[in-house]
């Protein structure tokens, strides 16, 4: 719209926004603050579902018997958070791809 109505303004707007984006919105400090606010920034809240072979309970002949119950040593077989994996691959991965694409090819990628 600006390009149509006031083409002369476009260059100064670009210059101003460039500074705003580079030093503000996408600055290293601000991005760090933003990403640090997301969950999983630290491993502290993450519970590993894995354990060593020696920590597993003795198996019985029948598959899955006791699989989801605490055994003698209190070990519980936790399933992996597959939804998170799926979400990451389905949503963040394309984002990485498209962001890189923007960087390489610019606005034409959206056309």
């Amino acid at each position: 719209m600006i390009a149509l109505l006031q083409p002369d303004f476009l260059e100064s707007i670009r210059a101003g926004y460039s500074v705003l984006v580079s030093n503000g919105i996408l600055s290293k400090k601000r991005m760090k603050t933003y990403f640090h606010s997301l969950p999983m920034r630290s491993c502290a809240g993450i519970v590993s579902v894995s354990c060593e072979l020696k920590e597993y309970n003795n198996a019985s002949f029948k598959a899955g018997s006791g699989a989801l119950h605490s055994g003698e040593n209190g070990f519980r077989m936790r399933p992996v958070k597959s939804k998170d994996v799926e979400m990451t691959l389905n949503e963040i991965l394309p984002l990485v791809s498209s962001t890189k694409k923007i960087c390489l090819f610019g606005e034409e990628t959206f056309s």
Partner: protein
Amino acid sequence: MKRLFPNKTTQNYSQINREAYFTAVMFSPGTKKLDAEKKKRNFEAVKKSVDNSINWFRYYITRVLGISSDTVNGQERSGDPMLSLIASIRLGQTMETYFDKEKKGNEHSLALAYSRFTIMGLKKGVEKQWVTWIEKEVKWIKTNAGVPLNGKRAGVFTSFLNFPSYLDHLHICFRAGSESSKSVPKLTKFKTISYYLQKMAGALFASLDECSRRETTDQQYAASVMRMENTYFFTQCIKSRGSDFNELFAKQITAAHSICKHSMDTYLGWMIKREFKQLHSLFSSISSIRKEVGDADVPIHVPRASFVKTLQKESNREVMKEKISIIYSRMEKHLSEASRLLPVAWKALVKVLYEWFGRWEKLSTQCYKFVLEPSAIDMVKIAKAAGGAAVRKSAQSNPKVNNQKSDVMSSPEKSAGQKGTKQKRSY
């Protein structure tokens, strides 16, 4: 269960994308009206920001896929091998969607190639993570933890006992990871995973072989018992875990079956020879002489009086009952509860007793016209009576398990029932 990526966060992704679009329109290198210097400056600014944000995206991706390590409260936390194994499957499936199937070419192909490169990098990371875990566990298996040096009453090794639980866990995670898929793929489809799971199973057998062969292990019976129990346990556990694992460990099941069968033959042979030492010695001698001189001349070499005297002393009903009772007690002592092999081994022993006594009965009649008492059929009845009470007791406590049909269970009997078995040939 607490979600690691709440929906609120994922809703922001579309906003980030919109922001990226706006930025691209304003500053992209494709903006035609800008001169070369400004284009270059803008491109560098975008690239710097994009690279920075991509690093952050990667940071979170590696967290979710279980391949990042961190220090929490001074303790180093490595990644999550099980999670990374499941992630490697999902990455492989995701990779398929990033091929330029429509062959659009140009930047589209390049962008897809970049995505594939990113996925490959992540796949390499997750595979390294769970393969390292497998290698570590293989090392632990090879320590032969908990196996006594003399091998007596070793039972089912801890590694053998825990391995099926790991498979159960893997199965739970694998199913959970495939919930959204139209059909759950077979584990055998994933070559790397199959290879390393088989490697783990192979390590179990290597450990068993090492323990059964080592100098300190009793070779009279403990080595055979060790092989029998562990291979039987392995076969039964894998078979009860469905076709996927059956297919995956087909080679190991075949090997386990063969080892179990051979070891059981050896063990039962040892047991009978030990308890019926005099009879075994007598009929072995008669069998050899008979081959050289024929039936009629056997009494010349082993006099009938001597033959009958030995039988009356060693082969009367009361002695037999006692001997069989001793065999059962010994077998009960040798075999662990965990392997649940006792009823199987006892059944096989009854069959072998029938064959051996049948053979001796025949030799006695042909060479001396003397009817062996108790007969082979009587021996079966005595043995069944001795083992019956215990088998019934076991069946009452574990009806499902004891009702399971087992190839390993039937095979030693089948082999013992065939003509020309090892026991028969030895006479």
